[in-house]
């Protein structure tokens, strides 16, 4: 028996305990409290502008979609995309900076906290931070009276959906960080990955208007599922593959988180 592989092949890692991951989450939280205002303005600025420009601006020229005014049709997708952007930014640019420039991961990993717990804590933090932005967006949308009253009870189900989505994109960002050799890599991720996905997520127009092959491809991508589920909950627009969407989103979240943590451990513990 190889004593160095006794813990499932992760080398010198002796175990994973969520308690230690939370210590890293807490560190990120404390640092964030110094910058919360900047991060709020930065995180919300873009979605709010999209909302105003597309929802009210474009929307006044667009017919109702699926029976809803464009402003309403747009709202669920924009909440999801706020979370996507915020989580992605945190676990790409911010995490990479912590890892490579500040050497934060190295300094924590020489304490009783293991590398896998550092990464898990970072993923949790990325999700938390994005939920803060997403939550403000949701609140704004509610306060403006954009969401129809008859489905407000569904907010109970919307919350867990947003939490899963936040974890998904936080983990995906961390996965990208595990591949990144420099900051430029993230430019590719955002401009070739996230932004096209955002445009073809069903946020701005129903995917049913696209050719079937494109539709099917778009539906596999991580954002489409949450957007469709959110629209179902908030507006009541039917989503025929609901259970597939839920299952796929949850599966992706677990799979990507595990893969991201494993890759990061391999990258750091050589």
């Amino acid at each position, binding site marked *: 028996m190889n004593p160095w592989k006794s813990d499932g092949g992760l080398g010198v890692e002796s175990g994973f305990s969520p308690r230690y991951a939370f210590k890293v989450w807490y560190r990120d939280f404390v640092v964030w409290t110094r910058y919360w205002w900047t991060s709020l303005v930065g995180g919300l600025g873009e979605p709010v502008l999209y909302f105003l420009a597309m929802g009210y601006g474009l929307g006044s020229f667009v017919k109702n979609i699926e029976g809803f005014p464009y402003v309403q049709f747009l709202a669920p997708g924009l909440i999801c995309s706020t979370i996507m952007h915020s989580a992605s930014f945190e676990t790409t640019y911010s995490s990479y900076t912590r890892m490579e420039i500040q050497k934060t991961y190295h300094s924590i990993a*020489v304490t009783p906290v293991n590398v896998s717990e550092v990464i898990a804590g970072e993923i949790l933090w990325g999700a938390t931070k994005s939920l803060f932005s997403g939550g403000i967006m949701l609140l704004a949308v509610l306060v403006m009276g954009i969401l129809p009253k008859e489905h407000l009870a569904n907010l109970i189900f919307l919350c867990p959906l947003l939490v899963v989505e936040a974890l998904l994109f936080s983990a995906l960002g961390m996965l990208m960080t595990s591949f990144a050799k420099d900051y430029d890599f993230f430019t590719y991720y955002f401009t070739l990955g996230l932004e096209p996905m955002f445009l073809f997520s069903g946020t701005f127009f129903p995917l049913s208007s696209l050719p079937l092959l494109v539709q099917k491809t778009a539906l596999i991508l991580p954002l489409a599922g949450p957007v469709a589920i959110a629209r179902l909950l908030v507006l009541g627009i039917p989503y025929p593959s609901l259970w597939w969407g839920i299952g796929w989103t949850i599966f992706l979240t677990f799979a990507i988180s595990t893969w991201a943590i494993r890759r990061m451990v391999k990258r750091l*513990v050589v």
Partner: protein
Amino acid sequence: MDLTPKGTTSVAPKGTTDVVPNGTTDVVVRARDIVKKFGELIAVDGISFEVRQGECFGFLGPNGAGKTTTMRMIYGFSAPTSGSLEVFGLSVGQHSREIKRRVGIAPQEISLDPDLRVEQNLLIYARYFDIPKAEAQKRSDELLNFFHLQEKKKEKLDHLSGGMKRRLLVARSLINQPEVLVLDEPTTGLDPQSRHDMWERVRDLKKKGVTTILTTHYMEEAEQLCDRIVLIDHGKIVEEGRPSDLIKKHGLDSLEAVFLKLTGEHLRD
């Protein structure tokens, strides 16, 4: 101030079969034929050494010799390809968490949190060791005093000079009152006053019984601080012993001269 290393407060190794009973109980780090390969590259080529409790042990060697790789294996950041490495009698591969609890590491890069204030850097770090808040505050105050940083405790990090940051880094590595302190190039870039001050701090720690493992490029530092050293080159130990003995043995007048004699004078990078 109380820097006395605490005895193990957590559980003893659970019936591991790889802890070899030995005669000497004061060996804190024992390496036997450790090898580290990165693909085809052999960074550490079968080295063996022992670090004894309470001593200051030096790892010297040119760039790329394998000393940083060896340090990383000691504090669990890298797994040896083969060989046996034990800290406190615990195998590094299986007990890294327990070992890390009792070791303090001051790395070469200044890995402080620039987003936190001076004191916060220590208090947040204390959480990783499960040190209760009140105790962490007490230790933080003591350490800041010990390293002459108490006036800066509420400052932002960018208001600190390089020397102060390095002192804070070493202070942080002591927050858990470690039994073994690993210092990786602790005085790089420091002015002479700061360097001598750091040496005094290390001597004070030694008096308190802290075992120190030091890597450095400053031979004078190794001569001043180390009880014993190993000189590593191309992944192998080329010389070991007390600095004064080695100087006599090679008939030279300084450790630096011994170093250059054994490793050659051409550049390694």
